[in-house]
């Protein structure tokens, strides 16, 4: 037990050190922006997983708290510049967002959490659409399609921080990210956290051990909306603009995809997913117009083949570390083969998709595009044939290599099981 907690403390300290030094190692302004977005996404994703992974509640409307808190924060910052609102240091502004999120979460949560499962998901959908419709009606608060513009420079703070340069925003986000992660992790170790898991596993039984299922869900909802609001405030500070899309379905969808790809079953899952998806959307969107489609395809594949997400896949293989290196090495051939066939299939599929995008967006006939470094003309049928052949070949290969990979995995897992029961 003690060794474990030492490992965790050492690990956490290492991560914090890394976070502090990262911007110094990276020179690009764009990379800094991406890291800031990762930080915000991590907080939001973990908050969302409090509901989904730990509480068993799927919400399509969680962006409401993110967005509304963003609006509130923007108005507060504008108010401070005007002198209408008493001064709060920008460093503490995320708390304002948190409490705004909490306020709406408590209200909406009370009625939503009386149901679970599909009705809960649909109520959340209804509220998401309601709030989105309201953004165009209540112009006073939401300012319609323009959104609310704000400025994070209000006054100079301690140590000369103004939050003008991006790097100061990075440290703000990193700080609140670490604090939020620590608190949310700690919450999983509390009685509430445990009972929340119990409600997820068996909501009825929980009543017979003394807890009101509704109240547990409501509390989880409220806490989750607090941290969502915190993330929303950081978003407002970072981007200095809050628009109606921050409360809508699309924003909720993105966070759902992040959490699911990362894995709902482990605490680290949403963190992984948030980082991965933010990186994908930032860097991939420059390379190809099809990046959103790829994101959707990855999500669907996860749902179909790896519902535990990336964290789930890692957890599946973790026990195998107990076996000797000989066993671990023996897995490499089958896994590599599966990897290769997957790569071939992907090459074919991605090629077709890229060509289709190019074809539909270009007006010029016989235009050439660059695919995998090769120049080719989309109107000629050879590239299409080649990609299609790769796709079929790869798919056929996968049907052979994947079962073999599964067999290798099962063999090793059985070895682990035997050891466990000795």
């Amino acid at each position, binding site marked *: 037990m003690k060794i474990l907690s030492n490992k965790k403390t050492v690990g956490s300290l290492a991560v914090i050190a890394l976070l502090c030094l990262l911007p110094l190692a990276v020179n690009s302004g764009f990379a800094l922006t991406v890291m800031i977005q990762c930080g915000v996404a991590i907080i939001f994703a973990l908050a969302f997983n409090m509901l989904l992974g730990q509480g068993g509640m*799927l919400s399509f409307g969680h962006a409401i708290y993110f967005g509304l808190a963003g609006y509130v924060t923007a108005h507060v910052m504008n108010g401070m510049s005007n002198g209408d609102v008493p001064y709060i240091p920008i460093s503490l502004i995320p708390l304002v967002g948190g409490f705004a999120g909490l306020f709406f979460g408590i209200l909406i949560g009370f*009625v939503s959490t*009386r*149901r679970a*499962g*599909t*009705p809960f*998901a*649909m*109520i959340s*959908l*209804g*509220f998401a*659409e*309601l709030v989105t*419709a*309201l953004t*165009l*009606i*209540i*112009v*006073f*608060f939401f300012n319609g399609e323009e959104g609310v513009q704000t400025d994070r420079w209000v006054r100079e703070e301690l140590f000369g921080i103004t939050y003008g340069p991006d790097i100061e925003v990075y440290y703000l986000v990193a700080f609140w990210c670490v604090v939020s992660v620590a608190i949310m992790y700690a919450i999983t170790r509390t009685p509430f956290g445990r009972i929340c898991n119990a409600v997820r596993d068996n909501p009825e039984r929980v009543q017979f051990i003394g807890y009101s299922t509704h109240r547990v869900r409501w509390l989880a909802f409220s806490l989750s909306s607090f941290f969502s609001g915190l993330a929303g405030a950081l978003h407002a500070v970072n981007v200095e603009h809050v628009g109606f899309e921050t409360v809508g*379905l699309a924003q909720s*969808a993105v966070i*759902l*995809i992040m959490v*699911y790809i990362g894995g709902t079953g482990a605490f680290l899952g949403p963190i992984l997913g948030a980082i991965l998806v933010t990186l994908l959307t930032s860097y991939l969107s420059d390379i190809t117009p*099809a990046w*959103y*489609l790829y994101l*959707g*395809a990855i*999500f*669907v594949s996860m*749902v*179909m083949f790896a*519902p535990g997400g990336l964290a789930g896949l890692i957890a599946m293989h973790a026990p195998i570390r107990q076996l000797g290196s000989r066993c671990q090495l023996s897995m490499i051939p089958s896994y590599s083969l599966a990897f290769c066939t997957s790569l071939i299939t992907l090459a074919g599929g991605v090629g077709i*998709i890229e060509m*289709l*995008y190019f074809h*539909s*967006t270009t007006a010029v006939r016989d235009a050439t595009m660059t695919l995998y470094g090769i120049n080719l003309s989309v109107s000629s049928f050879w590239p299409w044939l080649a990609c299609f052949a790769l796709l079929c070949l790869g798919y056929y290969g996968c049907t052979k290599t994947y079962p073999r990979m599964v067999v290798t995995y099962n063999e090793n897992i059985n070895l682990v099981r035997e050891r466990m029961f000795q």
Partner: protein
Amino acid sequence: MEVFVFSLFNGILYGMLLFLLASGLTLIFSMMGVLNFAHASFFMLGAYFAYQISDGIGFWPGLIFAPLLVGIFGAIIERYGLRPVHRFGHVAELLFTFGLAFVIEEIVQMIWGKVPVPYDVPASLNVTAFVWQGLDYSAYRLFMLLISIAIFVALFFGLTRTRIGLIIRAALTHPNMVSSLGHDVPKIFMWTFGVGCALAGVAGVIGGNVLGTEPGMAIQLGPIVFVVIVVGGLGSLGGALIASLLIGVLNNLAISYDLSLYPIFSAFGIERDVDGILSDLVNLTTGGIAPLVPYLLLVLMLIFRPRGLFGMRDV
């Protein structure tokens, strides 16, 4: 008065379109317990397929083949996509259909672009059928109404007079029992999903050229269909019909008449030149809040009466 009749006509039309969508969704949800998030995507596919076919061959072949294609596509998706996910539970199925909606929208954009495609009303029907009290009633819209009613009647007789209809009606309220009775449930599921999607496809074919055929059409209509089936009540096709018509008519009347809500506020002594948040609310009209109303209904219904107006099962 003529405005009322005209709005009513358009409202009923819109309602019937919603019903085509809602009936398919009700069938799928009631039979399989799957809330098909991608249902409106099949509506969109119906419109796009019809556009492509009418661009090449003609509108009338499109009317027949587009829904068929959508139905077959739906059946394939059920067999190879949804069925394997079934064992992971309802949440996974929901997420699968959600991801599917996402992917279909992107693929449609990929093939046909982001701009609306010129899917037009066929020339033969693009005429005024008759004029009443100074307002033109389009022949195409009459045609849409006729087709929707025809399909409704076919559904009605199909469900009440055929054996498979009997099984489906039983499954609407007692799905577990039906599978215990030994029917080839996987096959029924596949065909139900296919037929449900085909119904959505028909709605797309006849509605796409009026509502506009573009990649965003699925996300615009999708949530409203959910409102319809929740308000109408799950497992109840009759409820879906009534809810669709209700929402369609209310929506159209609210927009046509565009009544100001000011009288309500002035009754409380709030004037037009008030400051702050009330300034937005005071100047509201029924047309302005029309988009809100379905979702308000959805939320209220789910909170106070989850089985909807006529439902036989809880959500």
